[in-house]
């Protein structure tokens, strides 16, 4: 034990000495994370010749830092202009953007940065300490259990739809239906592709994401001169909002802790990802809140939950990569390639043969989060000015920026048209009282749910009872039902207390 502690300390000092790599990479990560379509994964690929030319230590620290910073960067446009740069940030604008519109953009950024960093740092330490245990999670979470996890996220549709259930469900199920476009995951028969090969692999997420949220938003904001509501009192630029944001986040430290643990646990399951984690965290946060009605209107907890969860995923994905040699996501897969290039082989023997590499990756992550909080918190004051740029300039820029972003991941012109089509759909939905977030949850989580569902059915040769065949699965089912019923019960009790007659 003492040896490990000494080794950890040594690795820590080593990692700190790479600050000159970490700090520039943080800024690079923030930028690529913020541009929709770019991500840590494709940036590493683009910079592959550079990455491979670096030494093992440098390359490793570079990739890990980029990964964390890109995750954090994706939250910035999500909060300020309603553009989630990646699917992992899709739950961030639910409460982040309303805050920005109320003139609390700076505060929202500070909350997001603090919860991301604390969530990320905390889960990194937990992942490091509990690695052997966490690595087992994937052994229990199979397709049946994952179906229930997905349903946690999808049940958010019902919560969002609370005001008008029928219209909310129409939006959510339309999203699920759109998400089912593409070949079925077992026999690869194309479905509803309108004859486009580009849709065989399903609806690409980034075009759907930016179309529904950002393009449609651009057409709405031009009614106003700036994003910030006129009702929000104009403020003199100061650090006050940043401190207030930090304060809000810190005073809700417990919220950060448990939502980031949701992210960590979902992150260690190979194949699951940040989008599921952030939706599930948001749903759970809302379900157990005293003020569920505030969610969606700019409630800090609705921002903390997805941001700490998706950073929890970041540290979580390292666990199966390092312990089992299974990359949990696209970025982890590329890390695997780069490490193999340097002759490091992942898997159960990693910590025997090259413990410094294994611990080094966690340490790099911890140090990045630590340095990140100091480097980017000050930026919140300047970044938030975006919301005061006149919309006559901002709207066209958002459109160009997002259409371009839609193109980048696959480099198909088709994806630009698709983003435009989703923009039109999103605009109609906004104007006529359908929730775009409900559509989006369907589009993102629908295909994942279907994958796990079909996999379970195929495994059981079509027996639907397979859904209730595992103990852990059944526990999760009960938990799901509880988390759906409890809020209703709480709500009724509260209403009775206030003696307000139920509707």
């Amino acid at each position, binding site marked *: 034990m003492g040896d490990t502690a000494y080794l950890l300390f040594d690795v820590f000092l080593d990692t700190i000495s790479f600050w000159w790599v970490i700090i520039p990479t943080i800024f690079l990560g923030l930028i690529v994370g913020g541009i929709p379509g770019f991500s840590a994964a494709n940036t590493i690929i683009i910079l592959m010749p550079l990455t491979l030319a670096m030494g093992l230590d440098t390359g490793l620290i570079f990739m890990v830092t980029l990964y964390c910073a890109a995750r954090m960067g994706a939250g910035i446009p999500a909060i300020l202009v309603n553009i989630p740069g990646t699917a992992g940030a899709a739950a961030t604008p639910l409460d982040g953007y309303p805050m920005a519109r109320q003139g609390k953009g700076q505060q929202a950024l500070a909350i997001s940065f603090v919860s991301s960093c604390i969530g990320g740092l905390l889960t990194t330490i937990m992942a490091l300490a509990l690695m052997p245990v966490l690595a087992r999670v994937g052994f229990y979470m199979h397709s049946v259990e994952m179906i229930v996890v997905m349903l946690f996220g999808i049940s958010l549709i019902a919560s969002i739809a609370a005001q008008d259930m029928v219209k909310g469900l129409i939006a959510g199920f339309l999203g699920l239906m759109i998400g089912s476009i593409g070949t079925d995951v077992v026999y*690869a028969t194309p479905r509803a592709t309108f004859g486009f090969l580009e849709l065989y692999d399903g609806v690409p997420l980034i075009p759907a994401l930016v179309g529904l949220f950002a393009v449609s938003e651009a057409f709405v904001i031009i009614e106003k001169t700036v994003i910030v509501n006129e009702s929000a009192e104009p403020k003199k630029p100061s650090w006050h909002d940043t401190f207030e944001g930090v304060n809000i986040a810190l005073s809700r430290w417990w919220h950060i802790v448990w939502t980031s643990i949701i992210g960590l646990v979902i992150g260690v399951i190979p*194949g699951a990802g940040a989008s599921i984690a952030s939706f599930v965290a948001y749903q759970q946060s809302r379900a157990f809140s005293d003020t569920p009605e505030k969610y969606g209107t700019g409630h800090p907890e609705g921002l903390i939950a997805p941001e700490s969860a998706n950073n929890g995923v970041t540290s979580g994905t390292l666990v199966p990569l390092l312990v089992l040699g*299974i990359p949990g996501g696209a970025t982890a897969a590329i890390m695997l390639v780069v490490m193999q290039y340097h002759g490091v082989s992942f898997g159960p023997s990693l910590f025997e043969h090259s413990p410094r590499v294994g611990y080094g990756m966690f340490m790099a992550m911890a140090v990045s989060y630590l340095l990140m909080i100091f480097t980017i918190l000050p930026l919140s004051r300047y970044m938030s000015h975006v919301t005061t740029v006149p919309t006559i300039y901002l709207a066209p820029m958002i459109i160009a920026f997002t259409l371009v972003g839609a193109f980048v991941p696959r480099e198909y012109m088709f994806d630009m048209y698709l983003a435009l089509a989703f923009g039109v759909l999103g605009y109609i939905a906004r104007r006529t009282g359908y929730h775009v977030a409900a559509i989006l949850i369907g589009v993102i989580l629908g295909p994942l749910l279907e994958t796990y569902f079909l996999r379970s059915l*195929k*495994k059981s040769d079509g027996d639907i009872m397979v859904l209730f065949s595992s103990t852990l699965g059944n526990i999760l089912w009960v938990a799901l039902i509880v988390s759906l019923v409890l809020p209703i019960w709480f709500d009724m009790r509260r209403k009775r207390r206030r003696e307000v007659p139920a509707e």
Partner: protein
Amino acid sequence: MKTSLNRRRFLQAGAASGLVLATPGIVRAATFPERNINVIIPTAEGGGADRNFRAFTSVWKEKLGTEFEPGYYPGASGRVGYEVYMGKSEPDCYNLIFGNMGPEVLNWAMQEPSFAIDDYFYFGRVDTDPCCLFVGAESPLQSMEDIVNASKERKLTVGTSRMAHPASIGILALGEKLGIEFNLIPLQGGKGTIAGAVTGEVDFSVLTSGSVIAAGDSVKTLLVFGKNRVGEALDNAPDINDAYDMTLPEMLSARAFAIHRKAAEDHPDRYEVLTSTFKETFEDPALLKAYVAESGTPEYLNYGGAEECAEFMAAMLELGARYKPLLSGA
């Protein structure tokens, strides 16, 4: 390729100066190639095909005296890339496609593409990577015997990257031979297939061996659907044909360059330059070095010309047709 400009300039400068003059191939290449060769890769940048491509062309370009410019068109299990190649690329020998003859040809057997399959052909095979059967390190099934015994009691689930894949055919053929029914579960790609076996989502998995080797000791290989050319790296697993007295053709992931048939017919001289320099590449020891540097398995480098490729393609189409009901659910 989305290289940084620096790298690209560097490469261009390099190609333009020393390399070109020094290569013997340049004498023939005075007329062809006059410009860069565009290569469509029907999978994502940074993937296995991409690395393989970079390694191979880093040597081939010297023989040919020109640069190769890859364009990535992933999607629909490679269909998008082939459709773009057949539909949009000029058949002038300046446009090639670098595909995987195993799964991609099998695709055509499941659902025909919009072009005639005969309109293109593979002329240069780079490597052959046999598929194999493996279990997770902690699986209760640790030998082929375990698997055979267990399958007498229940239908075992088998992870595969997708249904229409040579590995799936391998396991179906084995099941046919032994009178066992296996339940194939597609796990969306190599990562998922390995994870499925390791975490116990499925009883065991089948996959191309290159990815299995990369997974290291978290998995154990029990059977190779072809020759085990790497021995220890695949746990000395036996060849399916030796172990079960079968005559199954090797179930391969086989990367190869293909060209429009029209291009080869209209420009026999250019096609000649391509095939001869392709063959020369294999004689250069630099290829092995480049291949190892991109973390490929050097034992799998395996030259094949148009004839070998045509033979393999025909075998894949035939097996695909035979197993179509099982693989496509039709």
